[in-house]
């Protein structure tokens, strides 16, 4: 078991609820999606899984060990945990703080104590694998949104984590880069990585996940299941504010139905 969280409660600093008694688990090598509308607590949940936020109530287990603030202050535990879990933040500007793309990708492996020669080799490999070697000397500020996302992913892949936490990985990207991100997620999972994706983008869910947790606007898990069942449950999607009731005219007649945006099947 990679993650197991039980009855987790978390509130923001202003006292408003972010997560209410949330329980979930993630198995090794799984592709799991946390589906929820804006403000449902998806990002907070990923922060908790990455040991960046700590719940007021409930327990979080990572790789069978209790994940607490105290444990993460132990250098050995912290280093081992950080090496095994990589987090790609929703906003790349938060994640790209170094002065060049190369430094950014090298930051993680260097902090985690990898030998210098290995760091250099890994940075070159990851940049070339993601097709961004030409950006290596560029300042992150000058990159496009898609390039920033690729660099953010590279900055995590360079230390080869077992688990990838992806927060809204396709948000704000053009269709081509979205497709690239989806392919990247599938390929990484096939290589044995565990992928946990927080998203409200129903168009990618089917492709990037085999199990879904749905968070409601009340910050609770309201469903868990495989994508085929979850995405066909209109009532559930409307309840989670992931689909809406859509009305439009056909000539003079008013026509109304539930409405969601799901990708068409891809065929080779």
């Amino acid at each position: 078991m990679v993650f197991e969280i039980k009855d987790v409660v978390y509130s923001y600093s202003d006292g408003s609820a972010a997560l209410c008694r949330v329980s979930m688990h993630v198995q090794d090598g799984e592709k799991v999606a946390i589906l929820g509308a804006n403000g449902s607590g998806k990002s907070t949940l990923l922060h908790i899984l990455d040991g960046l936020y700590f719940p007021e109530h409930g327990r979080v287990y990572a790789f069978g060990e209790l994940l607490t603030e105290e444990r993460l202050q132990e250098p050995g535990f912290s280093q081992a945990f950080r090496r095994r879990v990589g987090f790609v933040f929703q906003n790349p500007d938060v994640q790209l703080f170094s002065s060049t793309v190369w430094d950014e990708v090298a930051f993680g492996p260097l902090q985690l104590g990898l030998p210098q020669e290995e760091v250099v080799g890994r940075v070159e490999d990851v940049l070339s694998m993601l097709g961004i070697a030409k950006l290596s000397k560029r300042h992150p500020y000058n990159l496009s949104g898609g390039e920033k996302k690729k660099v953010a992913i590279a900055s995590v892949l360079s230390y080869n984590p077992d688990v990838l936490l992806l927060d809204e990985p396709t948000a704000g990207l053009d269709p081509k880069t979205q497709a690239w991100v989806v392919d990247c997620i599938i390929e990484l999972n096939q290589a044995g990585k565990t992928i946990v994706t927080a998203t409200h983008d129903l168009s990618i869910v089917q492709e990037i996940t085999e199990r879904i947790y749905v968070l409601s606007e009340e910050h609770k898990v309201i469903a868990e299941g495989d994508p085929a069942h979850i995405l066909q449950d209109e009532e559930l999607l409307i309840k989670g504010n992931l689909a809406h009731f859509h009305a439009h005219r056909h000539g003079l007649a008013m026509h109304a139905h539930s409405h969601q945006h799901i990708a068409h099947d891809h065929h080779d």
Partner: protein
Amino acid sequence: MGNMGTQTLPDWLTKTEQFTLPELQTKRRKTDGFIEKTLAGISTIIEEAVFSQKYASLSGLLQAMDARFKLISVLVLLLAAGFAHSIGLLIALNILALLMALASRITLSFFIRRVWFFIPLYTGIVVFPAIFSFITPGKPLLMVGPAIITEQGVKAAFMIIARVGASVSFAVLLVLTTKWQNLMRALRALYIPQTFILTTEMTYRYIFLLLRIIDDMHLARKSRVLQRTSGSENRSWIVSRIGVLLKKSQGLSEHVYLAMLSRGYTGEARTLQPGRAGIADFGVLSSSLLVLMAVIMLNRY
């Protein structure tokens, strides 16, 4: 027209209101674009400082040097400018800076503008009183009304301006011919604490992002303001935006810190060891040391 959730558009929103654009006035009203000008000015300065690699990318004397040796050489030359006690030596150092700029393929007119535009403005104003007899008594040179300009005063003021000019020239040469990231790496090699360097790097990184946010806020307001706003309205808007920006930057800093923690940062940043220096690096460093020694020796004469 569809509906949005359970709400329908109010009637007024479905009607097109007619407005005709006024014809061009022959007499142009003076526009009050101080916010735009200030924002654009700050953006340009930072962009030039951090992102402009026009001169740093050329192949010249200083560009070819290892940034660490260049930094030390410039520090030595700054010391030389500080030690020089004669006008002749200071002029010689200024000429040396110009020659180094030429050898580094920097356009002289650009270099002189960059160095000498602000010096008269700031240093000149500060040292201006020193030319009068009530600050520097001495041999009268000129009478300006009741005030007397003294030879010693003019000499002292000239020396300060020449010294500042030489120091600024060397510093500008360093910044113009070194890529920002290499300069930061050079500071690391000089055992400047990593936390300080990381903070400096990140400050520059995020100042630009915050400037973009301010610019967007300003443009968003401008696009919705229908009439000229008064000075007090503008000031109160600026003050409120400063507050918003402070809150945004605080939120941003918290998230950046979490992103660093997530990738193994423990409070002590680890970086790659710097590469090896070449013979040319030792050559320029030795020359700088010779200049410093020459200045100290010649001060005696």
